[in-house]
């Protein structure tokens, strides 16, 4: 049971980091699109004055902003951010409960039965947190995975003195 608690806790730490990094990625995407649309709409009006200078560039910017405006509803980043952020917070709280369970297991404050009871309750909650509806589509890329790996390694070293 001790090993199981440890493995699931470290796995949860990694998954929570992935979730946090995913939220940051969506936030950046959302911000960049909003900035582009704002700049495109304001500069396209201002560009009437310099229309003759680079007409193709301005036409391109306006066309691009129109395309983005049309396809934007199919990339509901703000909806993803809201839902994943809520899950991220739940995962962090779950992580605290796991750390508490690990501490009690280590200091022998819990009996084996008590540990297993709390452990399975937390595992159930973990399954719930990391289940995503069909309307949320994302992919954890190599970059996020590598950064989450590095953060988990740092967590292991800072909290338990474990170095790979």
């Amino acid at each position, binding site marked *: 049971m*001790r*090993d199981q608690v*440890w*493995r699931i806790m*470290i*796995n949860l*730490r*990694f*998954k929570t980091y*992935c*979730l946090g990094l995913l939220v940051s990625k969506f936030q950046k995407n959302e911000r960049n699109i909003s900035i582009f649309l704002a700049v495109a709409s304001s500069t396209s009006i201002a560009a009437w004055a310099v229309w003759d200078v680079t007409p193709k560039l301005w036409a391109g910017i306006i066309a691009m902003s129109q395309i983005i405006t049309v396809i934007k509803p199919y990339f509901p980043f703000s909806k993803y951010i809201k839902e994943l952020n809520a899950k991220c917070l739940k995962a962090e709280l779950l992580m605290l409960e796991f750390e508490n369970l690990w501490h009690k297991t*280590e200091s022998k404050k819990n009996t084996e039965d008590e540990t297993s009871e709390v452990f399975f309750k937390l595992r159930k909650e973990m399954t719930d947190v*990391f289940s*995503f509806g069909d309307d*949320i*589509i*994302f*992919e*954890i890329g190599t970059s996020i*995975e590598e950064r989450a*790996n590095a953060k*988990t390694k740092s967590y*292991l070293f800072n909290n*338990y*003195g*474990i170095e*790979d």
Partner: protein
Amino acid sequence: MPNDKNKVEESTKKYSTIPDYKHVPAPPKPKIEKEGDTKLETPK
């Protein structure tokens, strides 16, 4: 054919799931307190 099916399953699994941590190290060794162990006192 079974290989194709596996490929499809693998590619769909990739989306909307968070991978597991692949390098979980062994847990720290439990502290065992032996009888007769004396606590070190810091010199005054």
